């Protein structure tokens, strides 16, 4: 539906987006399985009209992204998800975040890098900050 509409206009971005969606679909099918499954099993349950080799391609790409694992010596190869859709988003985000210069130009990180001197200082500050540190969520200081 979406891929169909976008497919006519611009070739490359639409196809790339389509790939991301297909990867997500394959992952969600894999998520339904209770054990490692074959590519044919995935193809049967996929809602898209894909060829067997396309499914293999997608699975291989997901494997390269470390989103699925492959098991089974020889044949048939069995596939298992290590991450669902959110996991895939996390993988994409990590690739983005790894480019430090780009990241620092946009994002405000919650905390910045500590030197070892900072670390000691911080530990002593936190220790001073109170004995109510031990896990009590309502750690209000008593006055």
């Amino acid at each position, binding site marked *: 539906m979406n891929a169909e509409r976008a497919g006519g206009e611009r070739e490359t971005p639409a196809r790339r987006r389509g790939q991301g969606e297909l990867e997500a679909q394959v992952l969600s099918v894999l998520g339904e399985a209770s054990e490692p499954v074959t590519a044919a099993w995935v193809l049967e349950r996929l809602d898209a009209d894909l060829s067997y080799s396309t499914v293999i391609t997608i699975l291989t790409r997901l494997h390269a992204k470390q989103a699925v694992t492959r098991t089974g010596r020889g044949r048939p190869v069995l596939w298992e998800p290590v*991450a*669902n*859709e*959110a*996991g895939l*988003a*996390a993988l*994409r*985000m*990590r690739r*983005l*975040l790894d480019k430090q*210069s*780009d*990241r620092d*130009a*946009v*994002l*405000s*990180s*919650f*905390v*910045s*890098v*500590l*030197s*070892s*001197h*900072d*670390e000691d*200082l*911080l*530990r002593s*500050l*936190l220790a*001073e*900050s*109170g004995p*109510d*540190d031990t*896990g009590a*969520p*309502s*750690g*209000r*200081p008593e006055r």
Partner: protein
Amino acid sequence: MGVFVYLPLVLPLTALPIARLAEQHLHPRRAARLLTTVAVILASCSLLCLGLLVVVGTAQLPGNPLPDGWSDDEVREAVPHDAFAGKASILALVVVTGACGSIVHRHFRFRARAHRALRGLGGADGIAVLPDATPYAYALPGSPGKVMVSTGMLASLEPAEHRALFAHERAHLAGRHHRLLLATRLAGCVNPLLWPLVGALVYSTERWADEEAARVTGDRRLTARAVGKAALVARPVPGGAVFAAFATAGPVPRRVAALLGPVPPDRGWPPALTPAGAAALVAAAGATVSALSSLNAAVALFLVLKAATPL
């Protein structure tokens, strides 16, 4: 034009004292706004004067694209000793334009990619939790902006501390800190003398968000603990690039110490007799002189060129 066209190029030096002192003596929100304002004014004046010098420099070049009258001998006499500076500023303007363009391009490209990666994640509260053992938390600007936090970060904090973390990131989005940071980065690109303001502003916006988080949670110590614990779990792998071994405390311990202290006073302008007050005055004076002299230079060049151009 004379010396006035060069003054705005060096007057950013007057902003360095406030960059050093703002964090200690001003409320972080005021510090951030003051730093950004000063940076933008000084950079604009710098850029204007660079542009004027480019016009002068182009007038010296044979076959320049300017109207013929502009490269008259008269004009050259009216703008003496600018031959070298004029040509150098052509190069400088090209570099500055390229660098600023690259900053803006990378900023928006990263934002677009990050939003694409997070598509479908993040509910009505705008918080996207990413299953990732690496602890991180970021505020991603946009409309709507999103807070993205890894499960690794959430696991290392108590539930009450999560509130402080989310309040901190939301304060970044609500305060539109990315705009201040982008403006100041561009200013630092226009005139490298303004680069120290970027670091000062990064710190001020973090402190600003910390204060907001402390206000929202109503507990300064809780917020301090959240910041401290997050920094301790997020420390990089050994061998990573760490600017270690400085005698002074890094930004995170200073933030924690500030949170453990009292609420900073939110007064309008620091008293003139304090170091921060004097620094703020110096920066304000620098910005004013910079604006006046770039205006002076612009008017002078305009008059010279107007006289030289047959209409």
